[in-house]
């Protein structure tokens, strides 16, 4: 196997002391910025680009990869502990993770997220090593109609999964879809529902919505309940570490999350959000403890976290093999390559194998470093929850505001943050699930533009949606998932009537 020899060569490059140091700096920086909502890995790499210009290309690209992986870890830590997802990809983690933390199981939640990320990152990096050339051929055959069908599957499963009733889930989803309409229509360049406010031209920022709904909404809700009944938070209940039971319940979600995250991440328009939410839905369907979902089920943390990290490795497939940046961070890494006069693409493997394989090998090392760094910190992190509630939530509010301002320095953004906070409070008060709103905002505009692109390419013929075998199968899955629950319910009623 050529790949093995190349990888071994790569490893000898990656374990040079200087490169190890670069990887360490990268993962530390990445973890730090991943914690702050709004300041993501993309911005960090952008800030470092002019500085690393004089450094050795191998070392700085290894550092960028470390930042990328580190950001994924940092984002989930705040999602679990204070219900503030650092980036949209850790939104699904916040759902069960924060519930676990509140139930005193923050330790196992952080541990399963760290170990799951490690497992998924490692498997996905192996996938990157061996499957990249084949996967990329498949990925570019994926047309707009296929993306549209994939979005349909995500919509159906997500709205059916969240909340106590599908109607409430759908209501939330449609709020999100409506919010997603705001801004310039990508296909015609005309602005919709923006009312001349320049900040709305590009649509509503996902992190502003998520932080508003999750963090601000939560703070308001807790404040409103304080006098009625004080919620006692115990930072640690039971073991700080994962029990045997936790391991048993985590390993399958890790693998399933990886299986979803890596291929979808490798798609040019795949991203990290779809696989994390799909993984959450899958785990909720397959779990043996359905009653725990919504109250802190470990599967709901293990799956999405694995999917998240696997998709990060997936995005490197089109980046390295085609020079296609499919996420903001990947775009920055591409800029990083270009500043050394290197063009990622089919020729990079042939022209600079030392660099490519050094990078891939250092991904393994960055992953191991993150595990070693994060596991001992779990004990420290959970102590955050011992802070008295008013202080903790005041801190969360400062943190949320700071992150929003840092990402988009504008008063309009702050007003939106507050408005979404109130919306989040009301939705909590009246028992509507929050996650589908965010899913609608993220996926709605993508689904719309992919559908219109598909129709534009087919010159208006709707048959294009079912002519590709892949989209036909996905649409069928979506249809079945939509109808089946009602059908089963009907059957149940039928049986009940018979008795």
């Amino acid at each position, binding site marked *: 196997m050529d790949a093995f020899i190349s990888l071994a060569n790569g490893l000898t490059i990656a374990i040079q002391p200087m490169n190890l140091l670069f990887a360490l700096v990268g993962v530390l*920086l990445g973890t730090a910025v991943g*914690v702050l909502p709004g300041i993501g890995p993309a911005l960090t790499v952008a800030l470092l680009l*002019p500085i690393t210009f004089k450094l050795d290309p191998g070392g700085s690209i290894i550092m960028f990869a470390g930042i990328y992986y580190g950001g994924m870890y940092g984002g989930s830590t705040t999602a679990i502990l204070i219900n503030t997802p650092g980036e949209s990809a850790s939104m699904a983690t916040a759902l069960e993770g924060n519930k676990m933390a509140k139930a005193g199981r923050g330790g196992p939640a952080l541990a399963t997220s760290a170990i799951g990320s490690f497992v998924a990152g490692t498997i996905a990096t192996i996938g990157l090593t061996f499957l990249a050339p084949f996967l990329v051929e498949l990925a570019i055959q994926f047309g707009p109609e296929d993306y549209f069908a994939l979005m349909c599957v995500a919509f159906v499963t997500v709205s059916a999964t969240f909340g106590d009733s599908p109607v409430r889930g759908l209501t939330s989803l449609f709020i999100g879809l409506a919010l997603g309409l705001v801004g*310039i229509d990508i296909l015609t360049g005309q602005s919709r529902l923006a009312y001349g406010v320049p900040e709305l031209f*590009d649509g509503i920022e996902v992190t502003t919505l998520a932080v508003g709904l999750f963090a601000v909404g939560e703070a308001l809700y807790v404040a409103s309940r304080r006098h009625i009944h004080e919620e006692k938070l115990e930072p640690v209940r039971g073991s700080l570490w994962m029990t045997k039971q936790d391991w048993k319940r985590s390993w399958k979600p890790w693998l399933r999350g990886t299986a979803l995250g890596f291929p979808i991440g490798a798609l040019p328009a795949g991203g990290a959000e779809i696989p994390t939410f799909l993984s959450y839905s899958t785990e909720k369907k397959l779990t043996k403890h359905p009653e725990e979902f919504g109250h802190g089920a470990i599967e709901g943390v293990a799956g999405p976290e694995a999917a998240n990290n696997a998709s990060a490795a997936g995005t490197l497939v089109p980046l390295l093999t085609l020079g296609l*940046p*499919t996420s*903001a961070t990947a775009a920055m890494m591409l800029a990083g390559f270009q500043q050394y006069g290197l063009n990622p693409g*089919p020729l990079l493997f042939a022209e600079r194998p030392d660099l490519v394989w050094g990078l891939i090998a250092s991904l393994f090392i960055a992953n191991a470093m993150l595990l070693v760094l994060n596991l001992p910190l779990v004990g420290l992190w959970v102590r955050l929850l011992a802070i008295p509630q008013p202080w903790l939530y005041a801190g969360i509010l400062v943190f949320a505001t700071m992150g929003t301002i840092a990402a988009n320095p504008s008063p309009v953004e702050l007003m939106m943050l507050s408005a979404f906070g109130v919306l989040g409070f009301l939705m909590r008060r009246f028992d509507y699930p929050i996650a589908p709103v965010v899913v609608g905002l993220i996926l709605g505009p993508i689904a719309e533009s992919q559908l219109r692109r598909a129709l534009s390419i087919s010159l208006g013929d709707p048959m294009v949606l079912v002519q590709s075998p892949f989209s036909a199968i996905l649409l069928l899955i979506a249809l079945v998932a939509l109808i089946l629950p009602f059908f089963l319910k009907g059957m149940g009623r039928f049986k009940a009537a018979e008795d």
Partner: protein
Amino acid sequence: MIHTRKSLWRGAIAVAAVAGFVTSAAAQMELKIMAPAAPGGGWDQTARSMQQALTQSGIAKSAQVVNVPGAGGSVGIAQFVNSGKGDGNQLMVMGYVMVGALLTNKSPVTLDQTTPIARLTAEYEALVVPADSPIKNAKDLAAAVKADPAKVTWAGGSAGGVDHIAAALFAKEVGADPTKINYIPFSGGGEALAAILGGKVTVGISGYGEFESQIKAGKLRLIGLTSATKLPNIDGQSLKDQGINLEIANWRAVVAPPGITAEQKKALVDAMDKLNKSKEWTEILKAKGWDDAYLSGDAFAKFLAEDQVRTKEVLMSVGLVKS
């Protein structure tokens, strides 16, 4: 919170430590450069390259880059004009895409409210088809567009941007109805490139740099460039050489806020003159593959005014702008 803050500080200190290497002494100017786009795009790269060259060559004491993303620069320019008024230490990167975006967005703030300083770079548009496409050159494409403009699908960047304008001008130039073109906008170069490679569209149009590695690898065929003649370092003909009278460049420039004094303007123009001659800037242009399109002061102001009129005409002719 405490630990979070600690690790943040650690991050900040690490950044500061690395940053310490590059700050050089001398020079008096402390510039703030706005990139009215997210990190990673062309304007951001221009701003950060300027930052690097200005500080390394000692033209400016410091240069800070601020990203204000949104709507082809509409968000950034509004903030720049409102908060930067009279400040002679601020610059904003802009370009041809912003001219079109402000028109299509009906932005309340226009480029006339800024003080033009200098045009820095240009990048020509490339037209590509998949390697197995029956279209071999620009003439084949012209024939297809002329036969039925709706059947030729174009993949490029945002609606009303330079890619879209170039596609419309192509149709107009070959005698087809430019309002009938089937232009499919993609966000970000990656997605458009995937659609072209996958054979989902007839032709791709974007800056040459976006396609370079695929062309060299033989996966895409370059059928025309929008430069006046053949470019020295690119193996391919211009559209003009193939008898299609279309010349367009995606230029990038810097402007200053409104209400600055004549001295402040002169200082900024002088700084850009020095930047353009610096060895650091020349090296960056070479590494990034950008063409030097330097034009400063009043000459640039004249060019900018003319280009706005020309762009408006094109956008009206394709139906993107109504009045």
